[in-house]
């Protein structure tokens, strides 16, 4: 309940404030958002599996975001930023799909 409310509050605050993305954050934000989404779906799946632990959620969330940002940073430095970002997005996308599939099985038994 509160979790859904938190999501709603975050969206509303973002819409109200409409902050400018700082320039140094601009390349990392999209990847970080996708990584965070992956962590969120992983947490939901763990919750439905009955093995949810808030500490694990926090750690996986932060590490996901940090590693995604690190990969983008490294990619930019190595000159393969675009390709590496695409790779990260693909991997995270696959994970999100498999997590969502598990969640779906839990909720709809299908």
């Amino acid at each position, binding site marked *: 309940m509160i979790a859904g409310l*938190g999501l709603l509050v975050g969206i509303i*605050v973002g819409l109200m404030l409409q902050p400018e993305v700082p320039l140094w954050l601009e390349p990392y934000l*999209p990847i970080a958002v996708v990584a965070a989404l992956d962590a969120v779906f992983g947490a939901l799946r763990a919750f*439905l599996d009955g093995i949810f632990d808030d500490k694990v959620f926090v750690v996986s969330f932060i590490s996901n975001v940090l590693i995604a940002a690190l990969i983008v940073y490294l990619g930019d430095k190595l000159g393969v930023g*675009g390709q590496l970002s695409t790779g990260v997005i693909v991997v995270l996308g696959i994970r999100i799909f498999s997590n969502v599939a598990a969640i779906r099985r839990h909720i709809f038994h299908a």
Partner: protein
Amino acid sequence: MSSSPGRDRLVASLKSPRSRGQITAALLLAVVGFASVVQVQSQERDNDYESMREEDLVQLLNSLAGASQRAENEIAQLEQTRSSLRSDTDSRRAALEQARERATVLGILAGTLPAVGQGIVVTVEDPEEQVGIDQMLNGIEELRDSGAEAIEINNTVRVVAQTALVDGEGGIVVDGTQLAPPYTLEVIGEPHTLERALNIYGGFVATIERPPIGGEVAIEESQNIEISTLAEPRQPEYAEPAEPE
């Protein structure tokens, strides 16, 4: 088993909100929502270049620089072509000018162009009708000798290189045209030289004014002689230009 434990847990969590895990999840979800909205909006607001990464921008800049380089090269090439075309036109115009000038000169000499200039008018009175082609040819030769550039007889015949003179009834026939005395020769050239050539001892004037011809020659200098009769230009039928050695 009516429902799975997972679904039960979800329903239970929706009903009883207070737990540490729920609050943590709410916080992180708020962060995710906030970040996604910010990213989506900045993506919508951004123009094309702002959201591009540095290497893409560098690549774009390089391609633009290459394109402008190519355009500049093309401009230089086209300018070169233009200047070469222009100099080509200039030289062609000069050649045309020269050819036209030459055609004018040759046209006056060949009698295909009207001519004006200083010269003399020679009037030959011939009451006895004794003046023949001998005297006339002599006169014309003397005039040519002293630099006559254009000669016209009786305002009807232009004397050129191919002009033929024949004796006829009651006068001479020049290029097939019957002429009757008195003959009037209009000559363009240096007036003094022409007059002196005709007045030379034993020359044209002397021959005509002496018996048996007994004619009379009047020579008048003029600054403005107009010769408007044209000779028919003749295409050489047998002669061909020879290769210059």
